[in-house]
């Protein structure tokens, strides 16, 4: 029989219905695991002190009314850039140390309305500026598969929480890769929704034209169930899409992928990429063919240009968004900002400043149009494109130091889809050097259902949903 930390959302809800265990049992079980492993992995920064009382209230509700809410009693790990009422929120920066949010982010409001329980807040790169968690002011998170390796980032704590089984599911946010890349390095599943599908209100802003909150979980199914809850128009975020939210779960359990057309991007099999990583992606393409999909090699712009576009847009938006951190209304003074935060703010100030705006910012936004147009053309013929999430497995602790463009280089394969605002699922597709490798399945804007169908079918017909034994790895 599975242990409590090994259950998916559906299995937890079934367990409640059948009275196999209570919400208090499940939450206490996670508390014990957190107590035992968190100090070794540095995943949670703050814990919800009221969690047992909340769990007891949910047990009462279940006894009275049964399961009437989609995420009732589901324990979440939440990235520390989501404002959470009553739980300290820092975005892993000293400038917000001790900050207790005065309002709640829309996504948190939505999961709470759906019955979710927040176990705690997870470590991330400071202000989400990075792909390693090494820029966190509170120390790096370590990879549950191998503590000498990084978990990726910026949602590294949330991905590690799922790999270490210290929560049933997690929330992360992606600007370019920050859900998919840590999910890949930790061997778990992450879903980046279309830009504007889920509200950014109450999430500490990084690149406002790119930021997309989304789930990280054990399976595509769990990610689909959460995406269903967190999506939708929000009057507090003018960029949220008015399109109705689909029942993404209806795309689960497809027996095959007949009729689905997939492109495997030639340029994403980078010349300097390891052969064994390339082979895992080609094997995944073969598996999708076996499941009935058509998979053709396609060509897109060299992803190296996405690095330049992303660097300029993201730094510019960071420069503007982080101006509000002045220590007057909340938080501390700007002198406590870490080197990476200062570097990003300043490069953005430079690219937006008089005389440079046209050469850098306008140019980047024009190349962005080219990237968008290319994808539009591809999606006339194809339902999805696939490639590796990251050029290789998790890198060693320390790898990001003295690499001012570490994140951009590691996220080269996920930047184009983020720049175009697309949706994408990242899920494990094998191992090299005993470390997981991630596959991305990217679909057009608002086609979450398509990406979920392909990813879920792949996941149910492969065997890569495995978890490390922490007693051996930590």
């Amino acid at each position, binding site marked *: 029989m599975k242990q409590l930390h090994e259950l998916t959302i559906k299995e937890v809800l079934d367990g409640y219905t059948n009275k196999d265990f209570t919400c208090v049992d499940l939450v206490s079980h996670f508390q014990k695991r957190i107590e035992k492993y968190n100090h070794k992995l540095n995943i949670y920064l703050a814990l919800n002190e009221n969690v047992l009382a909340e769990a007891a209230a949910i047990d009462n509700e279940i006894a009275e009314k049964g399961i009437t809410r989609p995420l009732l009693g589901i324990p979440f790990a939440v990235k520390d850039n989501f404002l959470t009422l009553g739980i300290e929120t820092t975005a892993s920066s000293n400038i917000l140390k001790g*900050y*207790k949010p*005065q*309002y709640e982010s829309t996504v948190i409001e939505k999961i709470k309305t759906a019955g979710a329980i927040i176990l705690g807040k997870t470590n991330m790169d400071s202000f989400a500026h990075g792909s390693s968690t090494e820029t966190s002011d509170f120390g790096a998170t370590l990879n549950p598969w191998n503590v000498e390796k990084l978990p990726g980032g910026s949602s590294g704590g949330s991905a590690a929480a799922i790999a270490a089984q210290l929560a049933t599911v997690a929330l992360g946010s992606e600007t370019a890769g920050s859900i998919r890349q840590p999910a890949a390095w930790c061997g778990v599943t992450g879903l980046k929704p*279309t*830009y*504007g599908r889920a509200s950014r209100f109450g999430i500490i802003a990084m690149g406002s*034209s*790119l930021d997309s909150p989304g789930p990280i979980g054990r399976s595509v199914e769990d990610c689909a169930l959460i995406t269903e809850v967190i999506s939708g128009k929000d*009057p*507090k975020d*003018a*960029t949220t*899409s*008015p399109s109705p939210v689909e029942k993404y779960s209806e795309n689960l359990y497809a027996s095959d992928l007949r009729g689905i057309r997939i492109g495997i991007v030639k340029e994403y099999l980078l010349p300097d990429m390891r052969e064994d990583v390339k082979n895992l992606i080609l094997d995944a393409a073969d598996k999708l063919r076996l499941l009935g999909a058509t998979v053709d090699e396609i060509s897109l712009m060299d992803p*190296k*240009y996405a*690095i*330049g*576009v992303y*660097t*300029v847009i993201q730094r510019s938006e960071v*420069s503007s968004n982080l*101006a509000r951190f*002045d*220590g*007057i*209304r*909340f*938080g501390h003074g*700007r*002198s406590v*900002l870490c*080197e990476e935060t*200062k*570097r990003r*703010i*300043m*490069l953005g*100030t*430079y690219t937006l*400043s008089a005389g440079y705006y046209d050469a*850098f910012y*306008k*140019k*980047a*936004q*024009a*190349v*962005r*149009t*080219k990237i*968008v147009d290319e994808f539009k053309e591809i999606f006339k013929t194809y339902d999805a494109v696939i490639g590796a999430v990251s050029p290789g497995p998790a890198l060693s602790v320390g790898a990001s130091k003295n690499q*001012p*463009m570490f994140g*951009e280089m590691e996220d080269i394969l996920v930047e184009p889809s983020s*720049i*175009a*605002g697309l949706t994408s699922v990242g899920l494990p597709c094998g191992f090299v050097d005993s470390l997981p490798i991630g596959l991305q399945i990217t679909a057009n*804007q608002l086609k979450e259902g398509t990406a979920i169908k392909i990813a879920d079918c792949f996941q149910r017909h492969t065997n890569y949903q495995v978890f490390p034994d922490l007693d051996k790895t930590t």
Partner: protein
Amino acid sequence: MHTVTVTPEEVKKIAKLANLKLQDNEVNLFAGQFTKTIEVVNELNEIDTSKIAETYQINGLSNITRTDEVDLENVLPQKIALREAKNTHNGFFVVDRLIDSDAEELI
């Protein structure tokens, strides 16, 4: 393609614009790093965008408006709004003096 060198003087100017104080060693460090980053960014000049419009908003929405009415649900009570501030006075935030201050003239 034009090469761009970001000088330490420019770094100091940017820091001022960005309201940041740098350590001496950071000025030279950032000057070198920004020069290298701009080199990568300048690869974009290999792409002809002369006939291409910029994309500032990616999901096609524009001019999203709301009725100009106060929604009390979206307003923080004064006590809560002030709660996280270090320095308040008679229900207001206290800010640093900007006019006639000793701070150097803004750029």
